[in-house]
């Protein structure tokens, strides 16, 4: 499990308008490029330093490539990060609150306790 890295993907894409569009239109290319070239950047640090060990599990990579917010929830990705980014990508294709309600409905089979989000 590398919940932290999934969260880091969602976080870094969400804060970059170009990456939001790129992930919306080309998810596989974006996820693979990001894992290759961005996953090991230390964010709160001056540039030029990097980690060496971060990579997705296969199921995490697939969930991100498939835009599968249900799988991300199951994996324990932080729900705020997933929701915020997915609203940015997909709300525009729907009527007011329609996307948010459908997003919740697709998670209806989860009961308490939800998957653990601790990293």
């Amino acid at each position, binding site marked *: 499990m590398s919940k932290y890295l999934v969260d880091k993907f969602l976080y870094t894409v969400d804060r970059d308008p170009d990456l939001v569009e790129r992930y919306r239109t080309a998810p596989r290319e974006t996820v693979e490029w990001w894992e290759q070239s961005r996953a090991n950047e*230390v964010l709160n640090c001056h540039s030029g330093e990097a980690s060496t060990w971060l990579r997705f599990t296969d199921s995490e990579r697939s969930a991100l490539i498939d835009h599968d917010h249900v799988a991300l929830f199951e994996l324990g990705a932080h729900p705020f990060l997933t929701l*915020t980014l997915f609203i940015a990508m997909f709300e525009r294709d729907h009527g007011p609150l329609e996307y*948010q309600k459908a997003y919740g409905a697709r998670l209806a089979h989860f009961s308490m306790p939800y998957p653990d989000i601790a990293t």
Partner: protein
Amino acid sequence: MASVVAVIASTHHPFYYRASTATGEDRPPFADEWVSKITAFRETLTRARPDVLVMVGSDHFHQLWLDNMPQFLVGKAPFYDANWYNEEREFGLPKMLLKGQEDLSAHILRAGLDEGFDLAFSNELRIDHSVTCPIITLRPEADLPIVPIYTNIFAPPLPQPKRFVQLGKAIREIVESWPSHLRVAIIGTGHLSLELGGPRQFGPHGPDPEFDRKAVEWIATGDLERCLAEVTLDSLHSPGNATHGFMDFMLMMGVAGAGAKADYVDSLDLFHTMEAYFTWYPSGAPA
């Protein structure tokens, strides 16, 4: 010494700005009632004639990230830029620039550390809607200097609820020991029951109206004993997966003091989450 002229606890609903400024067909049906309640709530701060605002909120994964996550952080800077690209994108929030009150920041940090709270600090903090929403609702002129205090209600492991209460109590005492003639309002925002990114999100009400009813009662009556008896880190999952933001209300109950009945209480049942507004006047209600 400084005086605490108002203690205010509120929800921070990022949709208020857009709802209150929308016109014509874009204006939601609940906007007028919401604006009217906010206008009355704002008056409770205006009447207290504050000079400085201590603002308690929580960063929503903007500047604070999982590679370096503080539990409690005090801003100490001459200015704070505010609101982030994704808040502009999703909520239409404007970019803002707020002045800081560095003397009070320094005093809170020094005294807080001496009281046993290992507070983190930031000399360059861009604040988010947990602080700017109450500025927009309570002081839209955004003309008063602030001291932002961030709590971690977002990224487990979280501090225990009682720690939020203890910190609130300490903040009250520390502000009252600040050698200054200035009038300070302490404002904090959190959530009642709330679900984000889960199956119960964006319903016709908050996900747990019964929790909301009890929570409003605890806050309005200052019933810290019952609140602390019922609320645990585990129990907060059940009213909604983002309900840990209620601990910022508990912090504000600590600021107001055990048993302190709020001088002003209001709420508004909205879709998605209930709004709630509380004001205490520790030095007596202003004329």
